[in-house]
């Protein structure tokens, strides 16, 4: 059975089904992270003391740059498909996956440093919300990398059979990846700088 509206926009919504689907999913993600940002405000307002510059800012700044760079390589992988350049798509998508890996590696070093210093979630409400928010964000990065790796490897076979549909898949995967970048853009000042 053929899945409807993967290439042609559905007349009543004006978009392909996958695009409406991903945006509804991202709207639910806004609520998921929104609840945690709300908890952060509540914990911070109620805290007797809140650490300032307690985390590694240079490392997190590098990680912010890594994630921003992965966002542009992601959008470039889609643009490459729009220009019918599959070879470039492979390079940009591969770079996006690698940058996700770099991000997680830096995060791993940050986490192990905290563990060795005895800074566990149980230490303070600050570390509790820090690990909850960055942990959930990290899981999102892993999820995105799994999808991107599929589209880089086995999933890219669709380029030969149905290039337009494949291009749309990359656009939708990109929307998710940019959202993960967007969440980090807010997590970075909230947890590291303020």
């Amino acid at each position, binding site marked *: 059975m053929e899945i409807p509206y993967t290439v042609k926009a559905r007349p009543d919504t004006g978009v392909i089904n996958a695009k*409406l689907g991903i945006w509804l999913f991202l709207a639910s993600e806004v609520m998921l992270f*929104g609840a945690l940002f709300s908890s952060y405000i509540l914990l911070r*307002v109620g805290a007797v003391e809140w650490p300032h510059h307690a985390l590694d800012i240079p490392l997190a700044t590098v990680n912010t740059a890594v994630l*921003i760079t992965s966002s*542009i390589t992601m959008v470039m992988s889609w643009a490459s498909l729009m220009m019918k350049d599959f070879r470039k798509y492979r390079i940009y998508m591969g770079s996006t996956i690698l940058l996700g890996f770099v991000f997680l590696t830096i995060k791993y070093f940050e986490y192990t440093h905290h563990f060795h210093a005895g800074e566990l979630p149980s230490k303070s409400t600050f570390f509790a919300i820090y690990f909850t928010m960055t942990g959930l964000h990290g899981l999102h990065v892993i999820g995105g990398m799994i999808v991107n790796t599929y589209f880089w490897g086995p999933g890219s076979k669709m380029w030969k059979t149905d290039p337009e549909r494949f291009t749309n898949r990359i656009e939708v995967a*990109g929307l998710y990846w940019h959202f993960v*970048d967007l969440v980090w*853009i807010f997590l970075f000042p909230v947890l590291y*700088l303020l």
Partner: protein
Amino acid sequence: MEVAHAEDIKKHVRVYVSVFVALLGLTILTVTISYFDLSVVPAIIVALIIASVKGSLVASYFMHLISEKKLIYAALILAAVFFLALIFLPLLAMSDRIH
């Protein structure tokens, strides 16, 4: 997705690169400002303004929200209303202090 020509995409790519440079610049700016000893309230306001500008750039250009269909906007406006409600929820706790 509308039928876009290679030329249009090349224009898009130039925009993507400008947005990328702006995002890196704003990251450096917000980190630098955090080292000035601003008091808590102005520091929070400045950091959130910069983060919002960065977030809007990502959403508008990388996520193409600048030219999206009405239905997507409607879904996001609804999400934004509920998001703001969540963010202002802690205010209720302040009016409910037990002394």
